[in-house]
Every structure is written in C-alpha cells, then in structure tokens.
C-alpha cells in the first residue's frame, strides 16, 4: 500500500465520517470496498488477469453468501439491489478502458467491455444456479474445500507457475518469462479465512444471517483488505448496524493510532528494512556479530511493519465506526512463547484456535493418547498450518514446527517448574529476574525462528545459523 493510496483512503473516509448518516455510511463502505478490491490489486504481466481475479473473488463471495444464507433472505429486495450495485461497479470499472481519467481505479487496462459482459452472463448463470440449487451443508463444506484449494494454488509455487503458464499460453503470451509472481491475488489469504469462518459457522448453525451488502463489506472491508486483521462476521455486523454519529468518533484513538502506525511502518520499518536480513545479504555477511544485528533488525522490522499497518487499519476502521480487533500487543515483551502467540497476529491465532486447535484438541480427547501426546500433536498441527498459510515451502513448515515444539516445551516446562519458580520468586526483585529472563529467552527463540521464515531454503537457513553461532 503506497502512501498516496493511503492518503486517498483517509481523505474519503474522513469525508464519509463527517457528511454521511448511518445508512449512507454503510453504503459508502460497501462501494468503496468494492472499488478498493480492484484499485489495490497489483498489476500483473498476464493480460487482464488483474481485472479477472478481483471479479472472480467477488463472484465467489456472492455464491458463498448464497450458500450460507436462508433462501427467503437471498431473494429479498435489498439483496437484489445489492446485486445491481455490484454489477454496476464492475461495469463502470470495466469502462475505464475507455475513460482515461479513471484508469487509476484498476491495476491495468481492463478487458474489452464485450468480454466483461459475456463473463458477467456466465457469472450470472452461476449465481442463479447457486440460488436455486446450493442449499445444504455439503455445499458449504464444498465451499471450504474450494477456498482452501484456491489458497493452495496461489501459495504453492509449482501450481502457481503451472497456472500462470496455462494462462500465458491461452493469451498467446511468452511462456519462458513465467514466474510465481504472475498470479498475485490481493488479500486472498485474509479473504479466505473470513470465508472459511463464515462457512464453518453456518455448518454449525452458529453464524448470523446477514444481507449481501453486509457480507461483501465484511469480506472486502477496505482498511483490512491488504493485511487484515481478520474480524468475525457477527462482531463486524454489529458495528456496521450500530447507529453512527459524528460526535461518537473517537478522535484520540484515531489520531494516536494513525500517527503511530505511519511512524512505525513508513519510518521505522522501512528504515530497518535496509539493514534486515534477506535472501540476498544473508550469504554476504562476514561475521557472527553483524549477523545478529541484521537478524534483530528483521525481527523489529516485521513487527513494526505489520503492527504499524494494523494501527492504520484500526484507525481507518474506527473513523467510520468499525472497531477492528487488535492484532499485536507488545509481543516481544512477553515472558514465554504461549504469551507471545497470544499477542502476535492475534486475529490469525484466534482464528486458528477456533477452527483448528480447539476442534482438533476436542477430537483427540476421545483417543488413548497420553495428555502430553495430545498437546504435542495439537500444537504441531496448528503451528504447521500457520506456517503453511504464509506459503507452501519446506521452510515455512519448519518455522511452524519450530514454534509448535516451542509451545509444547513451554507447556511441559510450565507443568514441571511453575510451582518451583513461583516458590523461588518470592521477592519483587526475583520476580523481575524471572520475568526478564523469560522475555529474553522468548524473544531470541522467536528471532531465531524468523531465519526459517525469511530465507528461502533449509540449506541457506542452516548456513546462516552456523554463521550466527560461529565465534572467534
């Protein structure tokens, strides 16, 4: 996200906050989020695909909403209007091909209007089909599988490259220059998790029933589109439906978070990026001392970048009355790894707790495994999946296992030593010693874990580890 994108977003949000009533505000968020899906999509070398990906995303969201929504609600008047608005936005964005002044609204030139129209007919048939046929749980489950497949397709490079090749040859474009970056789908990682959450809740008959406009807004909410946080539908819709008035705007929170976020992301993190380890410089570093400096620089860069981004998202959301959930609460100042993961990318870890860890732990209770075995399995599975969410590579798997094992050992340690430590730490001084040693150990464990995260292959990672621990 560039500063100019951010400035436009902030300006329009301010205007909306000042001049719109509750209903118009909800409509503004809806339309602006729809446009943002196209405007923020990165331009891609495969012709027109940066127009089709957002469009396919929109159609997917509509279909899945139909799947989770009672039949009589789907066909209500409000939703028919929403269909119309979505159609209009797609057509207008498609028309920017012929309107020079508005070309900034799409990543690159959209397809010809007749192509868009024919595609819309196909999508329309698909949606009608969904309305009349897609009405049971197995379809919701199918939706989850579809969304996970999409995630795998863009996170597993061999598949991404194969897809890109196929599309290139379909377009008569050069195949030799294909890379995995040919297909980048803005925000899909986050969109997918919001979709899975609502689909799974609908299977368990838990989620709220919402209008299409609300659902589309939830999935594509522009402040959280690029990098989260991952909200929950029932919470989000509560804010969206709540009365909104200018006098309730929490200026203190907004100004503080916006200033903090800009400072963290665009000044601190962008500066640290110059001295943080990356695949290029990792092999050039000549001694252990500087290797540690570069590793710590990365640890703070990733925190400040991501949490600064979240601060900005939270501030923008709050400006129009949406209280997005917190994502980071000083994670590097936590005395153990469990605490770290309760405060790092919280909306993601809560999602995994709700949809992976808890159900899996529950199911393990029926087995004859010893308690420690259940804990180990549940931690490893959850953390490995979190690793894979970042990309399907051996290094992300190992990063996940690193943290899974770390969490397991911490929980064992807790059981064995908690009492002993609390018996020893009887003075405030000793408690401080325990606390700060915990923080130091946890931070370094996390920082060393980032080596797996940032370098592309196990070999490069091991080389860097041997550099880190090479003394003299």
């Amino acid at each position, binding site marked *: 996200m560039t500063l100019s994108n951010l400035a436009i977003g902030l300006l329009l949000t301010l205007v909306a906050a000042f001049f719109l009533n509750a209903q118009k505000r909800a409509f503004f968020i809806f339309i602006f989020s729809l446009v943002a899906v196209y405007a923020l999509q990165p331009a891609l070398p495969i012709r027109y695909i940066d127009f089709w990906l957002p469009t396919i995303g929109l159609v997917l969201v509509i279909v899945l909403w139909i799947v989770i929504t009672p039949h009589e609600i789907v066909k209500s008047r409000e939703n028919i209007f929403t269909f119309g608005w979505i159609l209009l936005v797609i057509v207008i964005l498609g028309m920017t091909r012929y309107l020079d002044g508005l070309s900034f609204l799409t990543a690159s030139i959209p397809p010809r209007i007749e192509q868009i129209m024919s595609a819309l007919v196909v999508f329309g048939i698909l949606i009608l089909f969904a309305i009349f046929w897609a009405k049971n749980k197995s379809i919701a489950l199918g939706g989850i599988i579809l969304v996970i497949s999409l995630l795998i397709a863009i996170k597993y490079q061999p598949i991404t490259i194969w897809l890109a090749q196929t599309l290139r040859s379909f377009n008569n474009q050069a195949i030799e220059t294909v890379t995995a970056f040919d297909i980048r789908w803005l925000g899909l990682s986050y969109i997918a998790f919001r979709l899975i959450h609502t689909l799974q*809740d609908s299977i*368990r008959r*838990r989620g709220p029933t919402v209008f299409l406009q609300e659902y589309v807004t939830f999935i594509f909410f522009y402040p959280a589109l690029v990098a989260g946080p991952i909200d*929950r539908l029932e919470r989000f819709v509560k804010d969206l439906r709540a009365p909104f008035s200018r006098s309730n705007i929490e200026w203190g929170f907004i100004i503080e978070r916006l200033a903090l976020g800009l400072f963290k992301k665009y000044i601190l993190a962008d500066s640290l990026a110059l001295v943080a380890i990356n695949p290029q410089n990792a092999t050039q570093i000549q001694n252990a001392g500087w290797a540690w400096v570069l590793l710590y620089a990365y640890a703070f860069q990733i925190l400040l970048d991501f949490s600064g981004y979240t601060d900005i998202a939270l501030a923008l959301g709050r400006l129009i009355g949406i209280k997005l959930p917190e994502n980071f609460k000083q994670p590097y100042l936590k005395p*153990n790894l*469990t*605490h770290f993961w*309760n405060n790092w990318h919280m909306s993601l870890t*809560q999602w995994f*707790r*709700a*949809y992976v*860890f*808890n*159900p899996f*732990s*529950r199911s393990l*209770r029926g087995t004859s495994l010893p308690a420690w075995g*259940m*804990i180990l399995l*549940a*931690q490893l599975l959850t953390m490995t999946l979190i690793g894979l969410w970042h990309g399907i590579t051996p290094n992300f798997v190992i990063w996940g296992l690193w943290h899974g094992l770390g969490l397991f050992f911490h*929980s064992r340690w*807790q*059981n064995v030593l*908690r*009492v002993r430590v609390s018996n020893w730490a009887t003075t405030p001084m000793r408690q401080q010693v325990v606390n700060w040693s915990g923080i130091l150990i946890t931070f370094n464990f996390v920082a060393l874990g980032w080596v797996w995260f940032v370098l592309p292959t196990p070999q490069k990672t091991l080389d860097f580890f041997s550099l880190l621990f090479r003394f003299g």
Partner: protein
Amino acid sequence: MTEEMIATLKKFIATEIARQPDRSIAADEKLISSGLIDSFSLVDLGLYVEDTFGVRIEDTELNADTFDTLEQLAALIQSRQ
C-alpha cells in the same frame, strides 16, 4: 447457586489446570489473558463445563473475549442452562 458454580469451577482450574490446589482464584481474576489457562487447558475447561453443567461452549467461544473470569464464565453457563 452462582457461588457454588464458581467454587466448582475454581476447584477444577486450581487442581487440574494450574496444578496448584491451594492457589486462590478471585472471581474477577483474569484467567485467559493472564496466561493462567493456556489454550490447551481451555479445551479441557470447555469439556469439563459441558460434562458438569450440560452447557456447550463452542470452539469459537473459547477465548478471552467470551469470558476471562470465573464470574463471566458462570454467567455464560447460567445464560444457557
């Protein structure tokens, strides 16, 4: 009724989760956000509540936003009984 429920829950948490049977837990003490109950034990607590009080707490509800103290947990259980 509520106090009895809180006492039962407290006993379970102190002995089975914290493994410090003598530990006192106040009714408004933070359980989850303080780290006293880790995520794995939270599932145990959920199962215990289900077995003991016949109330299901969903996987998506096992977090500090839904309940973080004994008081809040008891209120949640009672609202579903």
